[in-house]
């Protein structure tokens, strides 16, 4: 995938993911401060603009770096620091590529995950974005072919469902302790919605 192709894909996916604002706001209101909807919609909107303003010859690495810094600044929060951290690690791992192969995408994901875990000092099971991210990257490792994105989505969704019954152990939600039981993690859901948006954008662009 060239830089130009990546831009088109991201533009559409970012547009789609922003439409989940209400759901994400409600999820974050239940066990956090309710800002995740705005964080995602404003971040996506701002990122579309920044990417559109980049020179047409920008590399995938540069595009992802811009995505990272724009999201980090639009409506700053815990989630944006995590996303930016992961995307910056991903961007660095493909710094020399003009175009991304499936292997490159896997490398990016494999670099992003530990960077995010380290930033959040979190582990799988803490009921955070990691509980969707880690299994979805495992699915990608198992399958870098055509159906990979569907497998990632399924794995992320399962990760969210499996942890919804537990207690949030990180971030603002952790303040509520037992009161978080039964609520799916907002950040993990945002990640799932992004994967879904990517999938839909890809189908649309193919059609």
């Amino acid at each position, binding site marked *: 995938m060239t830089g130009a192709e990546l831009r088109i894909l991201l533009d559409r996916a970012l547009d789609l993911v922003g439409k989940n604002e209400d759901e994400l706001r409600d999820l974050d*209101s239940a066990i956090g*401060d*309710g*800002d995740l909807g705005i964080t995602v919609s404003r971040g996506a909107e701002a990122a579309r603009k920044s990417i559109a303003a980049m020179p047409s010859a920008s590399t995938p690495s540069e595009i992802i770096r811009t995505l990272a*810094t724009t999201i*980090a*600044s639009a*409506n*700053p*929060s*815990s989630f*944006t*620091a*995590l996303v*930016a*951290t992961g995307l910056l690690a991903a961007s660095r791992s493909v710094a020399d590529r003009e175009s991304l192969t499936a292997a490159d995408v896997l490398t990016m994901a494999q670099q992003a995950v530990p960077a995010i875990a380290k*930033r*959040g000092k979190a582990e799988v099971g803490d009921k955070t974005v990691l509980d969707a991210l880690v299994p979805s990257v495992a699915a990608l490792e198992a399958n870098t072919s055509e159906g990979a994105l569907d497998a990632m989505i399924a794995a992320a969704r399962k990760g969210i469902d499996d942890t919804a019954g537990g207690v949030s152990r*990180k*971030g*603002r939600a952790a*303040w*509520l*302790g037992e009161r978080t039981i039964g609520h799916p993690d907002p950040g993990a859901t945002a990640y799932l919605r992004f994967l879904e948006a990517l999938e839909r954008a890809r189908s649309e662009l193919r059609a």
Partner: protein
Amino acid sequence: MAGISYFVRGVAGEMKKIINDPNAFVDEALDGILGAHPTMLKAVSADRRAIARADAPIKGHVGIVTGGGSGHLPLFLGYVGVGLCTAVAVGNVFSSPSSEQILAATRAAHGGTGVLYLYGNYGGDVMNFDLAGELAAGEIETDTVVGIDDVASAPPERSSDRRGVAGLFFAYKCAGAAAESGLPLAGVAAAARSAAANTRSMGVGLSPTILPAAGKPTFELGPDEMEIGIGIHGERGIRRGRLESADQIAGDLLEKIAADLRLSRGDAVAVLVNGLGATPLEELYVLYRHVRRTLDGMGVAVRRTYVGEFATSLEMAGASLSVMRLDDDLARLLHAPARSPFFRE
């Protein structure tokens, strides 16, 4: 004797704010502050969310950068000044600033000898400060000390998980004095660490607060309840109980703090009784009265006293107590001059 909870007909459950567009609240407040104090403060980023003392950077002096969510004035911005912090990154209400804003503050604070990050232990802030530190790496040396004074937020064995509340003021004051005296980064960080390590706080909340943009209370309390051990965003404390008398509340808070600090006869301390927003100054002094009597009785010498609003939670009713055990160094640093639009020593 129990505390008193009054029921008022005609003001049922309302909370009114003097604001314009809730989404512009933080930027308008900053605009007011920058307009009011142009000789002391300046904006150092295009979005005006990074703000430094007017004479920053101070060549040869270590910079101190703090930051955090809005809604806590005078925390955090109020402690940018001479003998205090050098710059601040200002987030939305109760939300972390961005790593970019922190980076802008870092650059504005860097006088050539590095920057200390000094802020409260909250997830979003830690992640964004850490990220900013990595972005600055190579360009500017940074070190980090976080306030973890709230004894109610985790047991002693997990004290590094504790949140930072009003006791952060002591760390600002001591680190700021150390930086002003020209100590290198390691020395300024050591002063901050010593202040933080010797400080404990605990608070009690009597009413919730409402985030302007969210429009819902941060928590709910029964009509005659209080939350003991509350955080400055309304985080749950140790227990919820019937509103008690001022002396009982003061006694409870001090007992927890004294035990955690292992205060003993002959110790010297500084005491800070902090209002969370709506609680009148008179009530804070009623609390102080009992704290002081109890410390006197314990043979603990109160060397410095601060009573007022130092770290608020918008219009929350309630108060917190912070105690810093003093050694000669901390006493000297605490005593040093300081000057910001919000604090003067």
